[in-house]
């Protein structure tokens, strides 16, 4: 993988690597992708994708707001201002 491509990938991932991490992780990534390429030898033309190992009934959770008694317990994991979560600029 070219440095340019790897740097683009890091940017998409929002991962910053120091010098040591950069060379070792880049080598690992290349070696592992080569290994992943071994899947090409398996014939799968007539096979469907298994998104789950078992059949999951197509049942979704009801879209009903749930009452929660302890709102401060939820908000204590984040910085808040007047019950709004404070975050960085977009």
């Amino acid at each position, binding site marked *: 993988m070219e440095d340019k491509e790897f740097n683009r990938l890091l940017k998409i991932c929002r991962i910053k690597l120091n010098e040591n991490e950069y060379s070792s992780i880049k080598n690992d990534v290349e070696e592992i992708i080569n290994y992943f390429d071994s899947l*090409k030898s398996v014939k799968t033309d007539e096979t469907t994708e*298994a998104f789950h190992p078992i059949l999951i009934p197509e049942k979704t959770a009801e879209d009903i707001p749930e009452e929660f008694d302890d709102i401060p317990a939820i908000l204590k*994991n984040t910085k808040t201002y007047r019950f709004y979560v404070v975050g960085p600029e977009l």
Partner: protein
Amino acid sequence: MNSIEEFNKKQRPGDYYIKLNSELVKLNEKLNIFNTISQENISSGFLFSVKDNICVKNVETTASSKILKGYFPPFNATVVERMKNNGFSFLGKTNMDEFGFGSFGINSEHIAKNPFDERYVTGGSSSGAAAATAILKYHIAIAESTGGSISTPAAFCGVVGFTPTYGSISRYGLIDYSNSLDKIGIMARKSEDIKYVYEKIRGPDSHDTTCVDKKCTDTDKKKIILIDQLITGLDVEIEKEFLLFVKKLENLGYTIEHRSLPFIDKAIPSYYIIAMAEASTNLAKYTGFKYGLKNNDFSQQYNTFFTNARENLGPEAKRRVVLGTFVRSASVKNLYYSKALKVRSLLINELNKILADGFILSPVMPIKTPRFEDTNKLSPLEVYKTDMLTIPPNLCGFPHISFPYSYLHGMPLGAQLVTKHWNDTAIIDFVSKWELSFNYDFKYNLGVLR
């Protein structure tokens, strides 16, 4: 080491547990009580620990990651709620590889050591769960497996580790690693304890729509199937001991049959592609202002803010995020992610045919328990390949159980038995029968006063 006093003298907090809640203060008192409790009273005060990627209300839950430091869930995971409702007492959160990313338990700030010999790894990712089970006599560990995180540490620490059919135990409150692979399971010293707990915690949950309401069958099989590709390339001593074990089973009346499944080695790349793809999306929620560690410099632009927060991920987590993002890229998605899902489908079909005839048996790991220094010599890819025996059942969601079958140079050796979906109790019963002819050894028996 048999007395509480002796344990307290030698205990080094952090080696086995990440943290223990305030109930630790009462540990001695509780253990005194346990000394008078027999197996029949299992539900009246038995201790349970919880892997650190499962939420316990108001107890710091970090999945062993710095990025989640300071996260206190305001709720209990369903499995925790069910354990408490059945009379179990919560002891603490157990150590693990960061987010479950590891086979040896070494991708953690506080690395657990093997209770049999502290020079050796515990196995991962449920490292603390296995170590705690090997130390505490009356204790159940709630653990979690994605690709072998219950079987491997259970084998290295000489305890029984059960991974149920995918979807049989609710995952509400589990910090996701890979949604289509994660399974909550159980470790204990005896299979009968696992069976008891499994019956209490399994079953549908309105909070988890992937948790399926399906009855377990109990189809006993007297046929043991060895897949040739899974028992070649083993460490020489492991192979010798395993074949002796197979001979013992034959003498106990089991029929042994060999089968071949040439592309089973493709389970490893398929598994890692799916696991990394799903992990890379799951970890995107740790942005530095919700859940755990806070970056309070809100003047930073969002991308910089997020990138800085992610510096708190360990090297293995970074590696997996990068690879997971790559295999999901639009230009290569069909080559990797979609292909891996199709290979999983093929493997499920082929293994189902084999499992219709009997149980699949193999060692848990192709190598002996490594010392810490040995793990440094392995590249990440070499580590991934050591999961060759635990990945197929995990990738395909088949229930499996790891149990000690022998001891070599003072360390336990574990075997893994796999069955078809929803035939969970049959493999637990198999191990119960094995336990009638084989005694497990433990170096520590905390909870026993003489």
